[in-house]
C-alpha cells in the first residue's frame, strides 16, 4: 500500500487526539496518587459519567452547556465520592484502597446500567462542528480538531497552575514530601477534596469530548481506566508533566501500530507498560521514591 504524506499526517493527528484524551483522564489519576497516595480505581467512572452527562444534556441544552455540565457533574461527584468514600482510605494499605475504589466503580457502573440500560447511547456532533476541513490540502475531521484545541488549552492551563501559582507549588511540594508541607504550617487536607474534584472534572470533560464520536456504554469506564493507568505508570506516578508526555507518546504508538499491525492496536499499550516497567520502573519523569 503506498503511504502518502497526508496519510502520515492524519495518522499523527489521530494519535494526538487520542493522546490528549488520555492525558485529560490520566492527569487526575496521577495527581490524586501523587498528593493523596490513593490508587483510585473509580477514576474511569468519572470519564463515563461525563460522557453520559454530555449525551443526556446536549440535546436540550446544547453542546457547550453540556460541556459545562459534564465538568460540574464530574466535579461534584468527585467531591461526594472523596468525602464519603475515599477519605476513610487515606493512609490505608494500597490493597484496601484498590478494593474500595473498585467497589465504587462497580456501584457507579451498575447504577448507570440500571438507569440507562446496558446498551449504548449516542450524542450528535453539533452541526457547526461536523464534517471534514481541509488544511494545506489535508482533510481532517473538524470535531477532532476542536477536541484537540480544547484538550490542549486545558492541559496547558493546568500546567500553568501547577508550575506558576502558589497552589501549584503546594501541590507539587506535597506530592514530593507531604510531611515537609505540613511542617510549613499548610493544611494539605484542604487541597485534597479540591484536587480530587478537579481530577474528576477533567476525566468527565474527556468523556464528554469523545462522546460524539465514541460509543457511550457502561463498560467505557474500565477500558479507559486501563489506558490511563498505563499513562500514569509510564509517565511516572504523581508527575503531571510525565503523564502529559506519556499520554502523547502512547497516542502516537497506538495510532501507528494500527497501520503496521492492526490487531495489536489494543494490546500495544500493555506492551508499552511492560517495557516501561522493565526499563524504568519509576516512569519517564517520576521520582523513584514514589514507588517505595
Amino acid at each position: 500500500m503506498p503511504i502518502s504524506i497526508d496519510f502520515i499526517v492524519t495518522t499523527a493527528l489521530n494519535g494526538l487526539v487520542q493522546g490528549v484524551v488520555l492525558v485529560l483522564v490520566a492527569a487526575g489519576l496521577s495527581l490524586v496518587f501523587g498528593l493523596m497516595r490513593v490508587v483510585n480505581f473509580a477514576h474511569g467512572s468519572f470519564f463515563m459519567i461525563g460522557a453520559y452527562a454530555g449525551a443526556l444534556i446536549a440535546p436540550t441544552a446544547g453542546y457547550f452547556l453540556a460541556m459545562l455540565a459534564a465538568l460540574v457533574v464530574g466535579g461534584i461527584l468527585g467531591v461526594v465520592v472523596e468525602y464519603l468514600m475515599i477519605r476513610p482510605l487515606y493512609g490505608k494499605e494500597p490493597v484496601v484502597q484498590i478494593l474500595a475504589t473498585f467497589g465504587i466503580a462497580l456501584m457507579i457502573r451498575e447504577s448507570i446500567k440500571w438507569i440507562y440500560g446496558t446498551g449504548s447511547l449516542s450524542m450528535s456532533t453539533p452541526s457547526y462542528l461536523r464534517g471534514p476541513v481541509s488544511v494545506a490540502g489535508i482533510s481532517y475531521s473538524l470535531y477532532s480538531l476542536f477536541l484537540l484545541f480544547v484538550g490542549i488549552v486545558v492541559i496547558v492551563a493546568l500546567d500553568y497552575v501547577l508550575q506558576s501559582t502558589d497552589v501549584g507549588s503546594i501541590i507539587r511540594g506535597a506530592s514530593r514530601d507531604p510531611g515537609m508541607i505540613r511542617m510549613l504550617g499548610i493544611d494539605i487536607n484542604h487541597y485534597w477534596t479540591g484536587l480530587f474534584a478537579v481530577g474528576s472534572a477533567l476525566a468527565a470533560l474527556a468523556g464528554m469530548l469523545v462522546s460524539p464520536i465514541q460509543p457511550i456504554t457502561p463498560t467505557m469506564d474500565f477500558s479507559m481506566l486501563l489506558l490511563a493507568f498505563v499513562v500514569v505508570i509510564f509517565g511516572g506516578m504523581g508527575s503531571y508533566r510525565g503523564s502529559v508526555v506519556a499520554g502523547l507518546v502512547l497516542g502516537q504508538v497506538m495510532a501507528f501500530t494500527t497501520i503496521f499491525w492492526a490487531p495489536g492496536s489494543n494490546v500495544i499499550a500493555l506492551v508499552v507498560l511492560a517495557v516501561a516497567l522493565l526499563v524504568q520502573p519509576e516512569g519517564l519523569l517520576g521520582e523513584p521514591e514514589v514507588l517505595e
Partner: protein
Amino acid sequence: MRRREYLQRTTAAGSIAVFAGCLTDDDGSDGSTPTEDDSDGGTDSGSTSGPSDLGTMGLGAPLGLTGPYASEAEDSREAVELAAEEISNSDEFDVDIELTWEDDELDPSKSVQIARRMIREDGIDAIVGGPSSSSTGLAVAPLAADEKVPFLSPNGTDKLNGEDCNRYTFQMAASATMSARGTAPLALDNEDFGDRWYAITADYAWGHDVSSELESIAENNGKTWAGSVRSPFGTTDFSNFLNQAQNADPDVLFLIHYGTDNATAIEQAVSNGLHEDMEIVSPLALISASRAISPESLQHIWAGNNWYHANDMGQSQQFAEAFNDRVGRYPSDLAATMYKTTYQLLEAADRAGSTDGEAMARELEGAEYNMLKGDERIREEDHLNEQGYYVLRGKGPEQREYEDDHFEVHNFVEPSQVTPEANYGGACDLGSF
C-alpha cells in the same frame, strides 16, 4: 396510506388473529406460522387431533447481556419471550414454556459452561435466543451435538454451515456469505458506486467471512478489491482504520461490524467526511446499533438487514407492533430472526409430538415456512436457513417521522440471489443424529 394508520390497522387484525388462536399454516404444509388469513385454527397435526401435548418446555441461552452486543442480546431475549408468551396463550400449542437466560459476557468458555448447566441442570430442551456472537455460537455448537439438544443459532459465521456444522445446530440468521451476497448487488448494479471496493472488517470469524465473500464477488464481477483492514473487537477509535481506507482511495467502503462497533465505525466514518468521497455500505446494520448513530450520520449509510420493521411482508407488522407495545421500541432484525425461530421450533415440536431433541431436530430439517419475509427453508444439507435480504438507506433528521424511523427500505433481495448452493464450502458433514 400513512405508515401509522397502516401499522394500527394491521396490528388490530394481527392481534385478533394471534390471540384468538388462529395460528395456522399458510399453505397446509409443514412450518405453520400465525397468519391473519386462515380461520380454521388448524395445523398439520392440530387440524384433526388438536395440538400435541408438549408439557413443559424449557428454552434459553447464554447471552452477551453486557459488552458491545448488549442491545442485540436484549432484543433477542425480548423476542423469544414475546413468542413464548403468544405461544403459551394460543390454542394452537399445548405447551408451557419456561425461559432461562444468563450473561456470558461474550466469553466462549463461559458461554459453554452456562449452556451445559442449562441443559443438564435446568433441563432446557433447546438453545434459542443466543449466544450473541459468532465465537460464542461456535463454542456452543459442538455442545448441542454432544447433548443432542437443538441449537437454533442467531450467529452469522459461515463455519456454522461449513466445517462446524452438526445435526443439532441450525443457522437461522443470514450467514456471512448471505449478508455479502445480499448487499453486494447494490454496489454492482448501481454505476454511481464506482469500481474500487475496500473493507474495514471486524477481526473475528463473521467479519472475515463477509469480507472474503465480498472480495470474491468484486473479483468475479470486474471490480477492484482495493484491500481491507481488520479492526479488533471492541475498537472505540476507528480513526486510524478509516485513515487507511481513505489512503486506499476506494469508491465503496464496506464497514463490516456488528453491535456497538458498527455504530462507532459509522459515526466516525461520516464524522471524518468519508461519505463525501465514497459510498459507505454496512452489510449488517441493526437498528439496535443505529439508535447509537446520529441521524446526520446514518443518512449517508447503506445497510443490509435480515429484516426491517417498516415492511408489510407476512406477519411483520403484527410482530413489530406487538414487540413495540411490549418493550417500547421496534424490534431489530435479530429480534425478528429469534421470534420466527421460536415459532419454528414449536412447530417442529408440535409435529414431532415431543420435545425430545432428536425428534425436534429431525422435524426442523427441511422445514419450509413463510412468516416475516417470504418463503424460507431450513435446508437439510447444511442447516442453513434460505431467506432473502433487505437493503436499506439511512434516514436523516428531517425524514424521520417517529423515534425508530432509522431507514427506508431500498429493496428486498430474493432468497435465490442471496442463498449459496447447498454445502457450498464443501466442508459440512452433519454427522448422525
